[in-house]
């Protein structure tokens, strides 16, 4: 059962071959067995999960069910969920039991899905290895000496290890796609504004976007059907007609134009990653696609631009953590300023403090034009490159990450080396485009390689079609680690 797709699980539940309580319990048992070595979850609450499962079972009796009713879904610990400890991977929120639900959580609750637990993540989603979590690093289920990627590393490890049916992630600079690639699963970051950010703890508001992570493109489509939609509580939520993201899954790919940015295939990519990506492209040609060479000349600037914009927005967003209304407060302090300074110094980890300081500096008097404004201008140039490229192609493909999963501690003291692991994903967030990663083979040390598929604005259904057709022709997505 643990290897079943969401469609198969839904059918088994509707046919009463298994109850939601039984299914939820079987995942909870597997988590109890495997989570101690993987550390994929920060919080479990079997009582609340099973209560939701019992309620779902009564829905099956009444017949009011959807595709995800009764299915256990893990939630990244960045989403506020009423009555659940919601830490965002930080000591700052070590005692924060959310008084309300994020929009994404409400959507899953309304669909009758089960909240199976809150997954581990880099602190405030700042990291590419899950090593910045206050609750300890997550281990990659393919090799527990290696990182799962980040920041949605707990989710990626949980899905890969079959600790949940599917799960949520968020992606500010690659935080869904990079861990999906490193753990051998599928993940989709939608177009900015498609999924509401209400109740999703903010990192860099103009880039943050939630999306589904799962075992196949078909599962992602069913998840996105629940997650997407207008929400007036998020001022950047887009008012668009409701879509069925499964609608194009079965279309043939004949004549599909795949753009290959020459900049993605230049120096920096590991030979093992290149080999797997090229094999995937050969498979696409067999499926009827044609390859078009394109150029994204400004994409090389996306890492520097991102490390101005994201910290700037983060320094502003994280100013709310002051030890007054919620979260951590230092045990000893003098005056008010001292209380702020000590609470923040003790509550935030090193990477978060670094980014707050970068952001504070680039926004400070005298530097705003040189850094923040310049970065926003280059952001437009990066976005325009994509607009030009989509005149010649339907989707863009390349590697998700320059290497397979690296060892825990390997990039330890050098933030810049860590930042460069998101070199292929960041431009997509800056442009606000949808991007996904699907497994496309194995590289050095038998670790998974991810193929990145970048779509034009609102082209999620086509991207899912492109991914699904590949998954019908190959079996990389159904490989699971031996645990």
């Amino acid at each position, binding site marked *: 059962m643990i290897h079943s797709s969401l469609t198969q699980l839904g059918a088994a539940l509707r046919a009463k071959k298994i109850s939601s309580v039984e299914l939820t319990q079987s995942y909870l048992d597997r988590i109890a067995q495997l989570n101690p070595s993987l550390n994929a979850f920060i919080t479990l609450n079997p009582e609340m999960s099973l209560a939701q499962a019992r309620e779902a079972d009564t829905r099956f009796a009444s017949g009011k069910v959807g595709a995800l009713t009764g299915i256990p879904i893990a939630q990244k610990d960045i989403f506020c969920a009423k009555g659940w400890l919601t830490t965002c991977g930080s000591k700052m929120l070590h005692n*924060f*039991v959310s*008084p309300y639900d994020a929009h994404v959580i409400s959507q899953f609750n309304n669909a009758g899905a089960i909240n199976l637990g809150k997954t581990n993540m880099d602190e405030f989603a700042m990291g590419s290895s899950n090593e910045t979590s206050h609750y300890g690093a997550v281990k990659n289920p393919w090799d527990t000496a290696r990182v799962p990627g980040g920041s949605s590393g707990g989710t990626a490890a949980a899905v890969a290890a079959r600790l949940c049916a599917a799960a949520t992630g968020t992606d500010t600079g690659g935080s869904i796609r990079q861990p999906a690639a490193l753990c051998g699963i599928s993940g989709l970051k939608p*177009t*900015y*504004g498609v999924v509401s950010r209400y109740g999703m703890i903010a990192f860099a508001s*103009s880039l943050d976007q939630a999306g589904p992570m799962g075992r196949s493109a078909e599962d992602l489509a069913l998840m996105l059907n629940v997650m997407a939609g207008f929400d*007036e509580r998020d*001022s*950047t939520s*887009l008012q668009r007609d409701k879509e069925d993201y499964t609608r194009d899954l079965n279309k043939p790919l004949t004549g599909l134009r795949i753009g290959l940015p020459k900049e993605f295939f230049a120096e920096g990519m590991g030979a093992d990653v290149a080999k797997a990506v090229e094999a995937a492209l050969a498979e696409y040609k067999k499926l009827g696609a044609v390859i078009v060479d394109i150029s994204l000349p400004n994409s090389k*600037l996306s*890492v*520097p*631009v991102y*490390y*101005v914009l994201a910290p700037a927005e983060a*320094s502003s967003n994280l100013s709310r953590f*002051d*030890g007054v*209304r*919620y*979260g*951590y*407060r230092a045990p000893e302090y003098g*005056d*008010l*300023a*001292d*209380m*702020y*300074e000590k609470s*923040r*110094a003790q509550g*935030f980890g090193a990477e978060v*403090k*670094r980014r*707050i*300081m*970068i952001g*504070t*500096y680039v926004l*400070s008097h005298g530097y705003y034009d*040189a*850094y923040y*404004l*310049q970065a*926003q*201008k*280059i*952001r*437009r*140039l990066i*976005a325009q490159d994509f607009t030009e490229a989509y005149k010649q192609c339907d989707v863009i493909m390349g590697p998700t990450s320059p290497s397979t999963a690296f060892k825990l501690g390997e990039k330890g003291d050098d*933030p*810049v080396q860590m*930042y460069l692991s998101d070199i292929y994903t960041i431009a997509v967030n800056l*442009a*606000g*485009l949808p991007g996904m990663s699907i497994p496309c083979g194995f590289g050095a040390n038998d670790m998974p390689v991810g193929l990145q598929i970048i779509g034009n604005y609102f082209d999620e259904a086509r991207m899912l079609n492109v991914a699904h057709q590949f998954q019908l022709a190959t079996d990389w997505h159904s490989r699971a680690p031996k645990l």
Partner: protein
Amino acid sequence: MSLSLADVEKVARLARLAMNDQELQAAQAQLNNIFGLIAEMQAVDTKGVEPMSHSQDLAQRLREDVVTESNQREAFQAVAPQVEQGLYLVPQVIE
């Protein structure tokens, strides 16, 4: 360009982060590495390019000026570090 120790100290103060000398020195080295990465951006000619703050260039949505939230003071204060009689407590700020 590179940040002096005094710059880093000032930034830490603006960001309300208490840091000792050792932490400031470590931060100085790491921030200067990161600004080395960012420096690549400075040489780009962006004359006439409009800054982009958001991918969809939307206007701010407005709503009716009516109450939409209910009073949940107790629920919200249940997670506060220190409250008394419905008020958040902080060190005295006015003599």
